[in-house]
């Protein structure tokens, strides 16, 4: 276990490009200024330091964006990103909510990261990421500006996510032409990944279909100190102390980290066996100290019979997906675009595989998943459920 005051700067320097190191170290130091030892947060300074960008209804690189007030009671804003069509270079205000025209349009509800306390939907890093997702997946992206800790503890972030999900599901202009339904995916990084899981849980008995969950370095934890937490504490930008601070800021007062929000497959979690939970794509960075909890999450989903694909990026640190200057970034973006495929393609694939069923090859769900990804590109990245790799 690293001593809490030990400064280990050399190892993280060796695995990230210089500009990434500058960006993430800057966040690390700035965030340290904001977390007060008594558990309060310097929100005023945080908002000043956060680099934000306005929405832009004029298309830039084929994407335009605008902000909407989704719930007046909680002042919940979302930023909507849409692909620009070639004919109209400048959508006017009546066309912002023009109905989508394609047969199938994925709508990705995105929850930004920041350990429940930092960042906003209009933070520059997340605005950039959401714009990328639009082009990558030919999707509409809805970035949710959920309420943050410590001013708004559990379950505010989940409530806001649920409100946004209901709002998206009820927009006629987001319905795909094929079946007049909204094709919804939930995605998020860090705390956003945690929120995506819990919003998907809430959707289960509601009749709202979530087609898939995309979790990038999702934030999970537990009371126990795992091996990865001890081994990597302080080495790659993140310390256990700051992780603990953020959980204390988000969880209800008096609760420990085995609360189901933090540890969904822990002693207080809900069983997902027999439940219709969306398929998940979970990305874990090899230098993230909470990876044992993330891998346990993947395990928990598999044990409950749920579809999950793990992308374990060995040499990646937190935040690798923020700048497109490394291989992990491109691999993950590729996998995300394949994950968000049109329903038509999935149905075709199922029909195709279904016709081969009599050969008895497709009984094992794990094999089905890997065969699926072989079919479209032949790229398989460290899939945990292929028998060769043991966890």
């Amino acid at each position, binding site marked *: 276990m690293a001593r809490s005051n030990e400064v280990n700067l050399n190892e993280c320097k060796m695995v990230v490009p*210089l500009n990434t190191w*500058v960006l993430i170290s800057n966040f690390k130091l700035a965030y340290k200024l904001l977390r007060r030892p008594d558990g309060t947060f310097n929100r005023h300074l945080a908002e000043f330091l956060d680099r*934000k960008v306005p929405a832009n209804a004029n298309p830039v690189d084929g994407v335009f964006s605008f902000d909407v007030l989704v719930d007046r009671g909680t002042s919940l804003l979302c930023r909507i990103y849409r692909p620009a069509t070639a004919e109209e270079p400048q959508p006017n205000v009546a066309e912002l909510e023009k109905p989508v025209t394609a047969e199938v349009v994925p709508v990705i509800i995105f929850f930004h990261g920041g350990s429940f306390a930092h960042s906003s939907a209009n933070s520059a890093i997340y605005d950039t990421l959401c714009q990328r997702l639009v082009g990558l997946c030919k999707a509409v992206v809805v970035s949710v500006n959920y309420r943050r800790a410590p001013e708004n503890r559990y379950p505010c972030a989940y409530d806001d996510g649920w409100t946004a999900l209901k709002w998206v599901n009820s927009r006629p202009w987001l319905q795909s032409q094929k079946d007049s339904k909204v094709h919804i995916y939930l995605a998020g990084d860090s705390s956003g990944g945690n929120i995506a899981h819990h919003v998907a849980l809430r959707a289960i008995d509601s009749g709202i279909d979530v087609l898939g969950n995309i979790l990038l370095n999702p934030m999970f934890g537990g009371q126990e100190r795992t091996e990865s937490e001890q081994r990597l504490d302080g080495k790659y930008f993140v310390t256990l102390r700051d992780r603990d601070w953020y959980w204390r800021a988000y969880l209800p007062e008096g609760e420990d980290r085995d609360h189901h929000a933090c540890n969904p497959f822990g002693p207080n979690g809900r069983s997902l066996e027999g439940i219709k939970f969306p398929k998940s794509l979970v990305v874990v960075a090899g230098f993230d100290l909470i990876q044992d909890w993330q891998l346990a999450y993947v395990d928990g989903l598999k044990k409950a019979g749920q579809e999950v694909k793990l992308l374990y990026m060995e040499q990646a640190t937190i935040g690798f997906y923020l700048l497109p200057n490394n291989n992990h970034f491109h691999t993950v973006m590729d996998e995300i675009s394949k994950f968000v495929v049109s329903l038509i393609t999935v149905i075709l694939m199922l029909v195709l595989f279904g016709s081969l069923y009599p050969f008895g090859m497709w009984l094992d769900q794990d094999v089905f998943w890997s065969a699926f990804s072989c079919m479209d590109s032949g790229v398989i990245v460290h899939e945990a459920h292929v028998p060769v790799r043991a966890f």
Partner: protein
Amino acid sequence: MVLYDDSATLAGSCSGSGSSSSFSSKPPPMQQQQQQDIDDLLAGAGYKVRSSELRKVAHRLERLETAMVNSPADFSQLASDTIHYNPSDLASWVDSLLSEFAEPPTYPSEFIMDPVTNQTVANDVWTTTNPNMPQVHQNISYEQQSLNNQLTVVTAMEEDSGIRLVHMLMTCAECVQRGDFSLATSFLKDMQGLLTRVNTVCGIGKVAGHFIDALSRRIFQGIGGGSINGGSAFENEILYHHFYEACPYLKFAHFTANQAILEAFDGHDCVHVVDFNLMHGLQWPALIQALALRPGGPPLLRLTGIGPPSPDGRDSLREIGLRLAELARSVNVRFAFRGVAASRLEDVKPWMLQVNPKESVAVNSIMQLHRLLGSDSNLNSPIENGS
């Protein structure tokens, strides 16, 4: 704590603009070259750092972190009581924090001795595709001072331009009201010039930009006689709803009017509201609901809505009336609606309103009566005519 940002800004609502981009005169050649050297990936994240300075900034970040760990007392002071400069200018932000530390801390050296060659080499192990850039040691305090001066100059000019814009907008609006369009047009030109000297992405620059657009539309409509409602009815309805949501002024006017109406109707069972301009009827749902909850039960409510005739054959007055009737039905308020279509308020005569002698009448007029004042000195104003 003092916060200091070089763009006229609402706190935290927009990214800080780099100091070099706010100059309206041509920047000296050195600055232009420096602008092209900005790391574009960090720029996408909202930070302006020159690629040539990345290594230096990284070293300073390391020193800052070491200092923070070694002197935690100074660090908590840093967190609560320090001047923060433009966070987008990462280099100067880090430097300003470093300068807050009381004693120079021991820090990992930027240069170390290579034991083999006995030469100083850069202490740098970052994975990078670029070959080692030559290190340029600069005196920190000199750099910071010149940056301070730059920031001060920009802010003074921007602030000055902002204030002048506001004054000019008021004066131009007064000219438009008087009908002095030629003077107003010359003000417009001056204001557009001033706009280039302020940040138009946010703050006073953004607001001024919109007002300048609106004034020019008003001016050229006045001269050319074109329609002020350029957009489609549908577009205008959406804009109206956005305006109603975003600004408190209209909502508050409606709220106060409804309050007065409620009090005046207390104890009366047959009430009639005449609305001089129904618009989208956004004032009335709240009144209907308040009447439904009134102790003693709701009265019979009649609403007469006056509005311009719809251009495209739709009867928009009737549609709004139907919606309000549906709402009233859902809260058990007996309700009747009449629409009176008239292109000018002065064309509406009292007999058209069909006021029943036994009912109490409230006349609701939100920002309508000023239009009845004469704008052309040749014609008598409708108010003077006593209609």
